[in-house]
Structures are given as C-alpha cells and as structure tokens.
C-alpha cells in the first residue's frame, strides 16, 4: 500500500488560553510519511521564529531528499537506515540555521526549540526528538510514551531522586536539558520502532501533557481513535479546559494498512517504472 494511503494524519495547534503568541509549529507530509512538531522558546517572537525554522527545514529538506533516496536503504557510511540519517542530519541543519540566526540578529539571541519528528517507512517509524516534546503510541489497549524527555525532571526521575507521582508537583517542569539552536552542535536522539496496523501515534508539545494527565490523554485516545480530527480537537480542548497555560499542539497518525517497501528486483523495477 502506498504510504499516503496507509497512514492517516491530523495536525492541530492552538495558542492556548493565556499566551498571545503560538510558539509551536507543526507539519505533516502525507506523501512521504513525515510528521514534525516543535515548541519554540525565546523572547518576543523569537520562539516562533525558531520553531518555524526547525519545522520548515526538517520537513522540506527531508521531503526533497526522499525524491531521490529510499528511507529503507542502508546508509553507506554508517550502516544505519537512510531515514535515521536523514532525520539526524536535517535536525542538525535546522540547529545550525537557528544558531546562526540567533547570533546574527540580537533580537533572536538565545532562541531555541524542542522537536519531535517521525518518519514512517517500510512498516517502521524512525523517531527523532530533542527536549520535552513527546511521542506516545496506542497499540491495542496499551498507551505509552515512546520518547523520553530531555529535561531536568526526567533526569531526576531516572536517577531515582524523585518519583513519577512527585514529578507532577515539581516546580522544575519547564527546564529542558537539550534544545535545537542553542549550541553549534546538537545531539539528536533517534530510535526506530516497528509499526503495526491499528497503531495510533500522538506527537504533542508540553502544553498538552503538562495540562492533561497521561491517564486522561490515554482515555481520550482510546475513546475517540476512530475519528482523528475529533480526537485532536478533544485533546486541545481538554488542555484548554484545564487552563490552557501554554501553546498546545498535537499530531495524530493512524496506521491503516501495510506499507512495506517493495522487495526483490521485480518489485523494485515495477515501482521504479511507476515513478
């Protein structure tokens, strides 16, 4: 099945109830199975600029590369999937653009952004993230986070210093330990996961998971999984009903069918002719 038929994608972003600006950005490229969500930070409108740069660089560059490259191939240098290399390189490219803009224009000094991005290919998804924007997955009845925040709080949880229950009342919620555009180099965390039919992937900014408990997010996703636009609306509404103190963005991806890459010479030639 072609990837754009195998996946259903919905993107939604909302400034929330308190903030005047929306510093989140989202993009869905259904034709190549790519989703990107960013949450910018920095004074004036610098957060918007940073998150906007990250989304446009990552989505347009990867889309461009995929006209030539096949994400399931192995990269000649690293032996990793091309998808993984594409994500890592283009997040680095976004990092450089933001870093240089921040250093050349005083009003953008110190701007940066989180990012979470998924590239679906060959019944797999490569997930890249930096900062505290998240990806969750519903598979069957199990709803779980598949990214781990790069935040002070997550480090404290990992080291056993603070329990998950205590983390909810921590005052250190908004300190990220990694972000795009802050330093000349950035380390992107990328993992590849198998994808199953029926899976639902949720990408969100912290405006959702800070305002709505994971249990309530899980409940909402399970209840409304048959209608993604309504599910996205409902999640944003829940964040806003609880105060909506931050911008809130969600991307939903539902796996409706198989999207294995064509294998074997025959299939490859066939798909080549189709192009």
């Amino acid at each position: 099945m072609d990837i754009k038929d195998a996946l259903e994608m919905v993107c939604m972003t909302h400034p929330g109830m308190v903030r005047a600006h929306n510093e989140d950005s989202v993009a869905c490229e259904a034709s190549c199975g790519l989703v990107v969500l960013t949450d910018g930070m920095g004074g004036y409108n610098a957060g918007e600029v940073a998150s906007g740069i990250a989304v446009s660089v990552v989505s347009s560059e990867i889309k461009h590369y995929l006209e030539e490259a096949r994400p399931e191939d192995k990269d000649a240098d690293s032996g990793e999937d091309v998808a993984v290399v594409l994500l890592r390189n283009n997040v680095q490219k976004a990092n450089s653009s933001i870093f240089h803009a921040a250093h050349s224009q005083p009003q953008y000094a110190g701007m940066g952004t989180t990012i979470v991005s998924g590239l679906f290919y060959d019944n797999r998804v490569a997930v890249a993230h930096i900062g505290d924007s998240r990806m969750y997955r519903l598979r069957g009845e199990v709803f779980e986070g598949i990214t781990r925040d790069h935040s002070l709080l997550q480090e404290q949880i990992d080291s056993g210093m603070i329990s998950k229950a205590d983390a909810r009342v921590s005052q250190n919620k908004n300190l990220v330990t990694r972000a795009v555009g802050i330093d000349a180099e950035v380390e992107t965390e990328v993992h590849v996961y198998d994808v199953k039919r029926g899976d639902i992937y949720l990408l969100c900014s912290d405006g959702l998971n800070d305002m709505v408990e994971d249990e309530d997010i899980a409940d909402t996703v399970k209840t409304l999984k048959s209608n993604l636009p309504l599910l996205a609306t409902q999640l944003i509404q829940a964040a806003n009903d609880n105060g909506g103190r931050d911008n809130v963005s969600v991307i939903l991806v539902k796996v409706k069918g198989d999207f294995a890459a064509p294998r074997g010479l025959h299939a490859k030639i066939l798909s080549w002719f189709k192009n």
Partner: protein
Amino acid sequence: MAAKIILSMDGVVLQEYALNKERMTVGRKAHNDIVIDNLAVSGEHAAIVTIQNDSFLEDLDSTNGVMVNGITTKKHFLQNNDVIEIGKYKIKYLNDQPTQTTAADFERTMVLRAPVKPAAAKPVLSTTQAIPTVVTSEDALDATGKFSATGPLTGSGSMARAAGQSAAAGGGEGGVTSQAPAVVQILSGPNAGKELELVKNLTTLGKPGVQVAVLARRPHGYFLTHVEGATFPVVNGESLGEHLRQLNDHDIIELAGVKMEFYFKT
C-alpha cells in the same frame, strides 16, 4: 526567590534560613549549616538538597529519625508549608513560588545549558530500547456504556418514565457545572430503563462500526459530538451534523436506532 525554612521550638521561632546552597545539613555538631544543640539530635541528622526550585529532605541515618507532617520518612520531596520535626524542634519549609498547579505560573520553557547531573548514575539508553511510561487503563472500556443497537423503538412506556424524571428534576435548572452529576437513561431497545452515569470525562454512546457519539464532560457542561458512522446523532429531533452540542436537562438523544434521555441528577 529562594525557598526558606524556619526553625522553631514550642511555637517560638528560633531562626530563619534561606535555602541558598545545594545541600544544607542539620545536626548537633557545629559544622552543620543548621546547628541544633540538643542531645536528641544526631551529629549529622538530616540534609536538605535543593535543585533549582525543588528541595528534598534526607534523613542521614539519624538515631531518632525525621518526621514530615507527622510521618516518619527517610526521604521527602518538600512542598510549601511542610513541617519537618526533629525531636522537639520543628522546621517549616516555605517556598512561595507559585506552584505549577495554580494560575499565572508556567514559566516559559528554558534550556539548562550545563545539565545538572544527578548524584546517582544515569541509566544508559540502548539504541533499540526506549524506556516508556506505561499507562494502562483497564477500565477504560468497561465503563463506556456500549449497548446493543438492535431492537425496535418503543415509545410509550419509556416516555412515561421520562416524564416522571422531568417532574423530579424540575427545580434543578440553572447553575449547571461540571460538578453536577448527569445521567443518560436508555429509553428504547433491549436495554431500555438502563441508566448510565456520566462519571468520566468522555463517555461513548452507540455501537462501534455502526454509529458512535461521545459525551464530553467539560467545566461548563456536557457536550455531545459525532464520532463515527454514516448518520449523525439526533438531539430533540434535530440532527447534530459535525457540530458539537451542549446538552440541556432532559434532552432526548437518538443514536443507532436507540432513544435516550440526558438529565442532571438532583
């Protein structure tokens, strides 16, 4: 501003300390940051570790232990107004930073340039494995109130019952909040008479694959929205379409061939 602690005994304030160091120790010996010269207090009794805006209390294997808010503890994540007891001494923890659960807080996200390394070793993430936060909610589906949608519409008997409910709930109009518990009662079909309490934020109605609507409980009321199916739910004879609709007391919903009534419990 930094958090502070107030040391007192028998209701008399002895001293106030700002938590301006990463680690402050409490004990009998003179080298502690907070010295309590009393034989019930161990040489090094406890420590308060502060990271950014959060403070943690740790018992340093003291002889007589530490209580927080009346409970003996080895380690505690301090919250504003917690009272630490060491022998007859009380230490009140004050952190008047607005907590993130109140309004007008949520500082903008910031980057920590030099990550604060926690004392314990950080587990290493292997590239193939993420450490997920697993959230399960087994009861999510049990309570969704699915019902069979097959069965003829029967009007008269159930409508009489609806009328009775209406009389009972007559005075309850007006100040409706999310706290007002509400119920959907099935009026027709094999489950006629059954009541479904809307105890969750989202309750689905209908039959998956045929027609489903969701009832969302929000701070300002209950809202019905179409989820799936070729036909839309009907409220008081009007089709809902793609829009959401706030429900009023005694609205009649028709969904997948079944009639039901929404009302507030009094």
